[in-house]
């Protein structure tokens, strides 16, 4: 497999503050690669470096086998990019803006633009500046997808999109991957990356914490679960289950954290009468802490 994105020691500092530090990243062709981290972790900085919008302090990056510092124009021809902080202005209609951006790439068929607009449910005849945040985001997605690029770099692509459009977006991403093309997308929400990506890189404070398959990540994700029973319960039998920690019982309500599979917990609970189960989104901080704990124990060995 060839690397579509490869960074070596990529570093960007802004004076004293670190954007990213010594980032080594490999994204292989045909993957949907998620870039996960809290806001300010360095995701946008990395993507801007790949597009040559900003220049690295140290290190280098290759995109599609080409050096970013030397061949950016050739790279940009073959990449679609959605900026994280997409702001579109102007009196021109969405259709005119997309036509203009298409012509900068040597022209994109009108039918392609219309088809994408229909899929995402965007009215192309409206002036760009009159569009809502979600509709601007759709226009941004269309310009990134419309020339069928070999690589899509999408910074927080689902921001502002309603759930139905998010579903359509996920289908579009899956189609790109089926074509053997590559998607590199960032998010600060674990669930979003889980749904879209095959592989995930986790970044925090400008440093790469881990790169994992989504399946493995899901197994290690810590979920907060709340079970309501019909009668009061004891904490002890649940605390004994492997992977269940942080158990708290308040009369008929059990609260605990589960790492990986919830199967054993559910089977233990099913012995009694369960009124309701609530699960909370995996907390990104907890995922990081798991990895940090892992790193430390690895270092100790």
């Amino acid at each position, binding site marked *: 497999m060839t690397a579509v994105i490869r960074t070596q020691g990529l570093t960007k500092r*802004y004076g004293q503050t670190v954007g990213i530090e010594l980032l080594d990243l490999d994204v292989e062709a045909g993957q949907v690669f998620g870039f996960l981290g809290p806001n300010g972790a360095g995701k946008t900085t990395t993507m*801007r470096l790949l*597009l*040559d*919008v*900003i*220049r690295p302090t140290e290190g280098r990056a290759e995109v599609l086998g080409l050096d970013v510092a030397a061949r950016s*124009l*050739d790279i*940009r*021809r073959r*990449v679609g*990019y959605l*900026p994280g*902080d*997409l*702001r*579109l*202005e*102007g*009196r*021109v209609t969405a259709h*005119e803006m997309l*036509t*203009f*951006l298409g*012509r*900068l*790439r040597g022209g994109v068929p009108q039918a392609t633009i219309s088809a994408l607009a229909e899929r995402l449910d965007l009215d192309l005849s409206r002036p760009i500046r009159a569009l809502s945040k979600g509709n601007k985001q759709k226009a*941004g997605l269309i*310009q990134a997808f419309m020339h069928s690029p070999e690589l899509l770099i999408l910074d927080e692509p689902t921001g502002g999109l309603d759930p139905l459009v998010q579903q359509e977006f996920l289908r579009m991403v899956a189609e790109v991957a089926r074509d053997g093309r590559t998607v590199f997308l960032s998010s600060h929400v674990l669930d979003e990356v889980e749904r879209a990506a095959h592989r995930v890189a986790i970044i925090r404070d400008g440093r790469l914490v881990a790169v994992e398959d989504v399946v493995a990540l899901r197994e290690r994700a810590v979920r907060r679960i709340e079970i309501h029973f019909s009668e009061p319960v004891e904490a002890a039998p649940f605390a004994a289950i492997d992977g269940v920690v942080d158990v708290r019982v308040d009369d008929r309500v059990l609260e605990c954290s589960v790492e990986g599979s919830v199967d054993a917990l559910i089977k233990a609970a099913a012995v009694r009468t369960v009124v309701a189960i609530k699960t909370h989104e995996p907390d990104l901080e907890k995922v990081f802490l798991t990895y940090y704990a892992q790193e430390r124990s690895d270092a100790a060995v």
Partner: protein
Amino acid sequence: MLLSSVYGKTLRDWRRGLLGWGLGIGGYLVMAVGLWPAYSQDAEVLESLVAGMPEAVKAAFGITDLSTAVGYLEAQIFSFTLPLLLLVFGIAAGARAIAGDEESGSLELLLAHPVNRRRIVLERFAALATSVAVFSLLVFLILAASDSLLGLGVGVGPVAAISVSLGLLGLLFGTLALAAGAATGARSVAIAAAVTVAAVGWAADSFGPLIEGLDWLQRLSPFYYYDAARPLRDGLNAAHAVLLALLTAAALAAGLWRFERRDVGL
């Protein structure tokens, strides 16, 4: 057609503003020149008025004699108001061309396309130059028509000369703002840089000659090369025109050099 290049798209985005500025500049010029016949009725009063003015006031507003048409045009229109209009347009458009777009966030999207930074700056500059040239042409047409209709006795050559000088001056300050914006990415810096050069330059050109031993000061000012050679009387001074164009090119090259090397949009 206008959607096929950065140049065309820029002009398209600016078209409403250009129409407004065209109407403003043209309207002002028609009105100001149209007042000349009424003005000239009182030539004697005007002459005594000018005689009583302090030298500093006369120098600041380019007043020599208000009793001839050329003197009136120089003092009332071309020494202050019309250059000021062109400067305000040029600086506003120049500051918006790169820095304004960068601050609004739209430059990042453009940079993600296969367009290199040099081309973006040069095509935006070309849009600025086209706009200024259109205003220059407008000034030429109105002034040439007035010249023959009102019998001002200026002549086509000097009319063309002042129009070209005016355009070069407006383009220089517009380019200063564009270049400062391209170098820094801040619209406020772009405007401040161009306005500072304009204010200091205007002061040096107006008051330098009045201070003994400092008359060389005005030769450092772009305004000196705009009208010191009296284009409305003597036609275009080629050396002065070339100097304005070279200053413009130097500012553009400096802005471009920095823009190609820096981070965009933070």
